């Protein structure tokens, strides 16, 4: 049997010294009957092996669409990538033909979703779905695939993996299903794992188990992890760096310690001040007035300007603020980042 992974590794242009994953100026729009919704408007970030990058933002800001564009699983039409690059080891995935891209996706970049039940096939046993991956992509025999599947379920800490391999997805609890999905994503040893709200639907005690498991597996495999979430507690616990998104743009990208102690973008700052903390009582919660904009009518200039306490006339005019370099590896799309960070 041919080893597809080896075949991919010699794809022309794949440079082992290039950054693991790099997203440059990504634009995605949805062309719907109600108009063009500009869901992603210039997202930039990069990811190194073993690093955890959190993409943080509120509902509808474009987190999942960004992940779908990276994976090449955008709902298209109506969704289209209109600009930008998604470079894996120096190769722009957006320019690859579909068949190569599919192999790339299977072998190098994997994704897990919020809702494990809908991502797993209800009519096949968990063992069959896992084994299928090994048979199809690794050319393993039935017996080897089964052995490997049990090992993997053991690794994600499914109790009595050997006995449960014949069970169907609905026979597992929510947390266990999430483990099965993690096992499936890791089956082909990806270098990059994108986790889209992997614990949002789970109880905190289960969330802690799953996040602990992800961190452990990531360390063992030196994987790059993109964690999509709106939970600032989870981010503070696990991320190395954060990209804060607002209306389809990364408005601040920074190391986790920097952004929590001295945010440079007014939106990031306001978000941090608006959440109650477990270890404090009697905080004043800061309210961000108004609502995020409709993506069919994003305000001129800085998209955050109607809600921003720092806004000046220049903020209401195009061009929108570029990603200003705040420090090496740190950017903020705010004309007045110096004032924000200075306080």
């Amino acid at each position, binding site marked *: 049997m041919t080893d597809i992974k080896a075949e991919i590794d010699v794809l022309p242009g794949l440079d082992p010294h290039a950054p693991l994953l790099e997203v440059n100026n990504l634009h995605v729009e949805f062309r719907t009957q109600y108009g063009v919704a500009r869901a992603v408007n210039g997202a930039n970030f990069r990811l190194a092996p073993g690093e955890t990058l959190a993409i943080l933002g509120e*509902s509808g800001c474009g987190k999942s669409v960004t992940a779908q564009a990276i994976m090449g699983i955008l709902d298209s039409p109506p969704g289209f990538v209109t600009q930008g690059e998604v470079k894996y080891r120096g190769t722009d995935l957006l320019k690859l033909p579909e068949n190569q891209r599919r192999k790339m996706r299977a072998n190098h970049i994997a994704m897990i979703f919020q809702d494990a039940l809908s991502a797993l096939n209800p009519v096949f046993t968990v063992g069959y779905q896992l084994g299928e991956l090994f048979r199809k992509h690794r050319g393993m025999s039935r017996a080897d695939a089964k052995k490997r599947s049990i090992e993997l379920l053991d690794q994600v800490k499914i109790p009595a993996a050997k006995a449960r391999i014949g069970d169907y997805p609905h026979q597992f609890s929510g947390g266990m299903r999430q483990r099965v999905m993690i096992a499936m994503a890791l089956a082909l040893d990806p270098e990059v794992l994108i986790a889209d709200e992997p614990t949002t639907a789970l109880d*905190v005690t289960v969330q802690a188990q799953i996040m602990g498991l992800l961190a452990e597996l990531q360390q063992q495999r030196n994987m790059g992890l993109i964690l999509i979430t709106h939970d600032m507690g989870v981010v503070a*616990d696990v991320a190395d760096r954060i990209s804060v998104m607002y209306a389809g743009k990364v408005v601040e990208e920074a190391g986790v310690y920097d952004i929590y102690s001295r945010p440079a973008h007014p939106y990031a700052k306001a978000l941090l001040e608006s959440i*109650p*903390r*477990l*270890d404090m*009582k009697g905080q004043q919660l800061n*309210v*961000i007035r108004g609502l995020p904009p409709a993506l069919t009518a994003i305000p001129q200039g800085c998209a955050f300007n109607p809600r921003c306490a720092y806004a000046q006339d220049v903020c209401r005019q195009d061009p929108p603020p570029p990603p200003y370099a705040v420090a090496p590896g740190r950017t903020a799309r705010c004309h007045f980042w110096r004032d924000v960070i200075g306080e």
Partner: protein
Amino acid sequence: MTDRNDVVLETKGLVKHFPITQGILFKTKVGAVRAVDGVDMTLRRGETLGVVGESGCGKSTLPKLLVGLEKPTAGSINVRGQDMTKLKGSALRHARRNIQMVLQDPYTSLNPRMTVGDIIGEPFEIHPEVTPRKGRAKAVQDLLDTVGLNPEHVNRYPHQFSGGQRQRIGIARALALKPEIIVCDEPVSALDVSIQAQVINLLEGLQNEFGLSYIFIAHDLSVVRHISDRVSVMYLGRVVETGNDAQIYENPTHPYTQALLSAVPVPDPRLRGQRDQIVLEGDVPSPANPPSGCRFRTRCWKAQSICAEQDPVLSIRERSDHPSACHFAEPRDVVHAV
């Protein structure tokens, strides 16, 4: 204890079992889901009682019993000295005015075919004695204003509002009959963080203005800490620990409370790895078949043989200055850096 007159609501031994049946034509009862299984709680005037616990522990069944959407299997619900479970007819209708509910999902809890004015004014149709017909339009507009919505929007439909605004509509409706008690079931869970703070601040403002008492049910322990004066922690249909803010968050004594708090991440990377960590094994057992003795014993790292034999009652103990349902209750700080 505080003045008895201060107590607006008190439950004693509240139980709700949902029968599990088998068969299609002739249903036979083969068991019961013990959703709420002996809950005592007290709510005082102007106070917020937080109720926390994991999915399926009975948090949503409790408010349904309190507002009369479900009939309790056993126990009493005293509101201002009257047992709601014994009242009938107009006396019951009248008593129910005093306790209203705000639901979690602002997307499905409002009738999409009714205007906002009709939704907020509907309680007046059911309780016409509260506001005379002539004054209702004005009353609805005042309510919209109270919750921070534009009174001119009375004729709009729910889909024309954002999630946070819909939650305000739900709150306005709950306020219509001027209740003393509002039970909120996960009122901010479906909202974005920037909108959550708006609704929390609104609820706090209304409480100060009208002297309301809240039962605030949520799974987010940080939000509950922020808004509550006292907190009850539920596990498998029972309250396992109850106390004021400092007792629950600074000195929790029940292992389940400790595990729950320890799992909540704090939005401060400097605390990473600095807190006492408890990782629970396994899942919550089925409420149809809870473990004997202490219900938490299948996941508890402190369990001894007595825990399987004797059901620990919720009471003040040698090493717990507030009620805790654990034979070995003792404080452990899992919230701060150690």
